[in-house]
């Protein structure tokens, strides 16, 4: 009998306590969905039993990660005395009280599926996933801190803004930039406060990061514009020198982003010009520092977008002279080499360009400018007469980076690839591949380049065949193609001794050329042909621009 009593008593003692938690459904009010809340009033209950009872009350599955953890939960006891609390927060608190963590698996998408509560050890900060979980937990507690019922607590009044900043930063680190912007914006809305400028900087950074992830050009442009708008609010208020420099860097990035994502070349150049002027004006107000050097490099990028290689080169010399040059981080150091090479190449200093690009490629593991740098390196080698190295760089650029390049760089890549091929005597192969590329896609610059190369190689008929597709265009490429067509006809007529046929072939093309300079050159060619044919009156008219 005693044994039976003992067994019964033990079973009673170990059974989960069903009546620990009382649940209640709070009906939906003002658009807030209905939710279940729990209440409990229980002393000295061990955490394992508490979690079991909670899971039972909420119809959850409970999974404890390991037996030692289960023992730890059993050894830790808590007093429960609360009402109308979120059951998940309570589960988390019970787990934390036992030095553990609680995670929820939402139910699968079928009837009868249940939420699963996983109880695990506190995640390790040594792994990225662990850090991510820690950030999530920190965010949960910060949100509880900011909840409505504590709104008027002095501590919340005092620390609320700082906590919002922390919460925003945690979300940024978690990659949830949109939500982070919301918290930073709430800091801005509660101005004046000491976190105002940092919050504005963070908002701008978030917009810049969102922009860089957008594939759609319009959305990218819009995000860059938003970033610029937020940074400009900093310039309207009081800020420290450090904040001023940070804001200048961000405004430069935002304006350059807009220039790069502009709909047209003209808009891009216009924005780049504004950016260059803005940064130039602000850079002069900054004390010499690493940040100022970064501003200078952004200014040089704007100059590069404007095609001002000389200005870029001069700006880079200015950067090099700064005592803070040696303190530049890895990314600014790469920027410096990229821009230095660009400026040197444009200012006929291919050797310096070559060295700068070699350094860049050595240190750029996953830099998205590697393609253009290979192109420029090939051009630098080519200018140095190192055709073999130039060919290798051009082949690398074409094979690995061509699909990811912008149109301008794509054309330059193909040109230098063809040029180096021609220089190395792979003429036919280069011409054939270029012809295929021109026929396959709309590559007017490449077509003109090929025409020039074919004309230089005295393959006039082939040059005319390449340009034939562009003769109907009413733009600068059409003019250039028509002009080269006339050049090819003239050279072919002279070489074949059929000069008399030339004026009749050239005169229909000449009026279609809108560029006056080119039209004048065509007239001159026709005049010269008439002169050689001893048709002096026609020649004189042709020289005067009258073609007949």
């Amino acid at each position, binding site marked *: 009998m005693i044994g039976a009593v003992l067994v019964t008593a033990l079973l009673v*003692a170990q059974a989960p306590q069903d009546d620990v938690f009382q649940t209640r459904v709070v009906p939906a009010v003002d658009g807030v969905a209905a939710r279940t809340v729990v209440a409990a009033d229980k002393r000295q209950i061990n955490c394992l039993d508490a979690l079991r009872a909670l899971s039972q009350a909420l119809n959850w599955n409970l999974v404890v990660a390991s037996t030692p953890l289960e023992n730890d939960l059993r050894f830790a006891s808590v007093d429960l005395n609360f009402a109308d609390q979120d059951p998940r927060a*309570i589960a988390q608190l019970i787990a934390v009280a036992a030095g553990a963590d609680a995670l929820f698996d939402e139910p699968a998408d079928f009837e009868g599926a249940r939420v699963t509560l996983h109880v695990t050890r506190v995640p390790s900060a040594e792994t990225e996933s662990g850090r991510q979980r820690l950030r999530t937990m920190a965010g949960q507690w910060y949100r509880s801190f900011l909840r409505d019922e504590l709104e008027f607590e002095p501590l919340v009044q005092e620390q609320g803004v700082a906590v919002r900043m922390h919460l925003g930063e945690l979300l940024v680190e978690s990659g949830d930039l949109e939500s982070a912007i919301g918290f930073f914006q709430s800091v801005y809305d509660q101005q004046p406060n000491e976190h105002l400028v940092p919050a504005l900087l963070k908002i701008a950074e978030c917009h810049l990061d969102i922009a860089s992830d957008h594939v759609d050009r319009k959305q990218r442009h819009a995000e860059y514009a938003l970033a610029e708008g937020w940074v400009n609010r900093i310039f309207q208020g009081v800020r420290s020198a450090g904040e001023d420099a940070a804001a200048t860097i961000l405004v430069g990035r935002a304006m350059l982003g807009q220039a790069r994502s502009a709909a047209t070349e003209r808009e891009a150049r216009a924005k780049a010009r504004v950016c260059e002027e803005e940064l130039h004006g602000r850079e002069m107000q900054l004390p010499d520092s690493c940040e100022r050097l970064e501003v200078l490099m952004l200014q040089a990028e704007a100059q590069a977008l404007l095609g001002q290689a000389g200005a870029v080169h001069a700006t880079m010399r200015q950067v090099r002279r700064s005592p803070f040059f040696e303190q530049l981080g890895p990314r600014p150091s790469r920027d410096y080499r990229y821009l230095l090479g660009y400026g040197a190449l444009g200012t006929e200093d291919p050797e310096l360009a070559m060295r700068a690009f070699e350094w860049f490629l050595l240190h750029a593991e996953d830099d998205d400018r590697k393609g253009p740098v290979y192109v420029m390196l090939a051009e630098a080698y080519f200018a140095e007469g190192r055709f073999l190295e130039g060919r290798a760089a051009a082949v690398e650029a074409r094979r690995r980076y061509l699909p990811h390049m912008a149109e301008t760089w794509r054309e330059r890549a193909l040109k230098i690839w063809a040029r180096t091929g021609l220089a190395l005597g792979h003429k036919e192969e280069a011409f054939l591949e270029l012809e295929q590329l021109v026929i396959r896609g709309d590559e007017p610059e490449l077509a003109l380049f090929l025409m020039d190369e074919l004309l230089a190689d005295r393959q006039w008929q082939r040059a005319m065949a390449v340009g034939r597709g562009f003769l109907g265009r009413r733009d600068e490429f059409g003019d250039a193609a028509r002009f080269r067509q006339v050049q090819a006809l003239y050279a072919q007529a002279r070489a074949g001794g059929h000069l008399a046929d030339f004026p009749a072939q050239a005169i229909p093309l000449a009026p279609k050329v809108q560029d006056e300079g080119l039209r004048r050159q065509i007239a001159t060619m026709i005049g010269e042909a008439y002169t050689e044919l001893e048709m002096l009156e026609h020649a004189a008219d042709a020289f005067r621009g009258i073609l007949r």
Partner: protein
Amino acid sequence: MTDDKAENIPAENDDAPQPEVVVNRDPDVATEAADAAVEDEQLDELMASHGEASAAEAPTGGDPVVEAAQSTAPAPKVDLEQQAIEAAVAAVAEGERAIAAAEAALADAEPPTQAPASPLPRTGRDHRELVLRVLLAVNVVAMIVVAMLPAPAAGPAAVAAPTTTEAPAPTSPTPVTPSPVTPSMNEPWNQALRASERREWSAAVTILEGYLDSRPEMPPSERLSVLSALSFYASRDKDFARSRRYSQQAQALEQSHSLPADLVKEAAAAVELGDQESLRRIWARFLLQQRQIPSWLYQHVAQAYLELGNSYREDAAAGARAARAHALQQAAERVRAEALEREEKR
């Protein structure tokens, strides 16, 4: 602990009224009754001393009831506990009446030569023996039930119940073990312990009462320990009214708003020590009893959430810093190795 309840049983014994019973002077009956009483006392002694020594000494393994009681430390159920105590008290009173009857029988017993003369007392003796045996069995079962009932877990906050067993007070875990006791507490506490060792329960009570009165600002956890000890010593002094009063005070204190105050102090200490793990546990325990947080402590709810958030954020940030440093170090080593490789190639 459940052991406390076991200790309760004989305590009521001593205080139980001595029933007036008609006794037989049969010496056999008297001897058997006396044996039963001695046996009962020995059983009480065994239960009580086992329970009291359980924390300090390893259990002998001879008493499954005590072992079961020690192995299970479930949460308390106040109403059940009260009912159990009442049942136990009733059972013990019954037992006590039987013992008293036996003692009376022993005192009034006739010479053994006269005993077998009458056949009637023989039937009465059997009947009484049966009653005694039943009562003893009921007593034992009642003690087992009391021992198995859920009670507060062991620890400084546990409430000591009155007991009459000879308890090795200095080693008794429940009422004597002080939780975080300040140095100033040691002296009166030790004095009370020494008095209890000498079985001067009244002196121990006086010492602790004086100590309690001298420190009105005593932290709640410490006050709980002192009240528990007072309840214990008063019960040993057979002042059950006082023991009950202190027990009730301790229970009220345990269920009052004081515990969150303790947690707030513990949290402050954990912050000073930079012990983030403890800080999280403390604030979690604090937040789980929000309904008993008084208004003057409510500010700490916000503080708890804030420090929980800070704790996890700082952990993540420290991890990220370490990871970045590690990555930088690796990158530097790789670049250095590449440079060396290039040098060798040249």
